[in-house]
């Protein structure tokens, strides 16, 4: 069952669900941005969108100044929102599309590769390419291996949690089809959120380690223009 699905290449359900998740996110973003965005008193939708984005902006603000926030916060928000929608899309009552795309190892490997390569690219943008490449082999050449294991651990963690939850659901449903799967779905909401959260937090910590050297210089610039982006979230 699981082994066959892995050997046959990409199942169409994964592709359709991933596309559906992205479309849902785009539709949500379009709906949230339907009102005219204002810097005055925001409406309900803008308030909600700002509440969501505020967490990522707060995370990114710990790493550096305004340039870093503008690059890092959308990156983290994309990671979190795409993963949480892809994790929970199997709970939509659509007959055939009941397979979460993140329970397929190729998808999570792609996501983790994007996260780690994005970390390297952002580090190259903010610290310079030479320093980034030097950081890979200096002072310890094994830091290249560290990047590879970052990819592996990120992808395997997401894949294992979601696929394990899904396998449990399938096995229990094949025994008792009424009532119990509902409870399992409710319990499945917890790893759905926590894994997306953990993926984002770990990506943020990799980014913070990569952009760290920029921090002191940017902090001086930030203190000259305080309070522009609202209160400091602690």
């Amino acid at each position, binding site marked *: 069952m*699981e*082994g066959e699905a*892995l050997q046959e290449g990409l199942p169409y359900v994964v592709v359709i669900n991933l596309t559906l998740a992205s479309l849902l996110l785009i539709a949500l973003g379009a709906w949230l941005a339907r009102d005219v965005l204002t810097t005055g008193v925001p409406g309900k939708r803008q308030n909600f969108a700002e509440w969501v984005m505020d967490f990522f902006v707060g995370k990114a603000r710990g790493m550096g100044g305004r340039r870093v926030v503008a690059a890092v916060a959308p990156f983290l928000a994309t990671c979190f929102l795409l993963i949480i929608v892809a994790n929970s899309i199997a709970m939509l009552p659509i007959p055939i599309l009941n397979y979460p795309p993140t329970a397929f190892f190729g998808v999570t490997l792609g996501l983790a590769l994007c996260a780690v390569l994005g970390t390297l690219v952002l580090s190259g943008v903010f610290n310079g390419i030479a320093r980034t490449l030097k950081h890979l082999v200096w002072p310890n050449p094994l830091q290249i291996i560290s990047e590879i294991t970052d990819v592996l*651990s990120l992808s*395997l*963690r997401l*894949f*294992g*949690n979601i*696929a*394990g939850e899904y396998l449990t659901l399938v096995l229990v449903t094949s025994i008792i089809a009424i009532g119990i799967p509902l409870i399992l779905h409710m319990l499945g909401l917890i790893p759905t959120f*926590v894994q997306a*959260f*953990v993926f984002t*937090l*770990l990506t943020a*910590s990799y980014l913070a380690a990569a952009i760290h050297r920029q921090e002191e210089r940017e902090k001086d610039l930030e203190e000259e223009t305080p309070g522009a982006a609202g209160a400091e979230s602690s």
Partner: protein
Amino acid sequence: MEPVLLALIAVIPISIGAAVAALSMRWISTAAIEGMTRQPDIASQLFTAMLIGMALIEALCIYCLVVALMLAGNVSL
């Protein structure tokens, strides 16, 4: 190898991994909840740190799950 034997072997890594990971997570959650009750002001920071620590431990358990799945994938039921 016999399929039944392979299925039995596949149980070993995930059971040991899950048991040890559960014990380690107990330590983390106990310490985090103690810290949160003593200082509710920094509860959100503690929660974040707890989640990261749990995720790092859970990854080891997940490796065991992957090994078990790879072993069980060879079993034709």
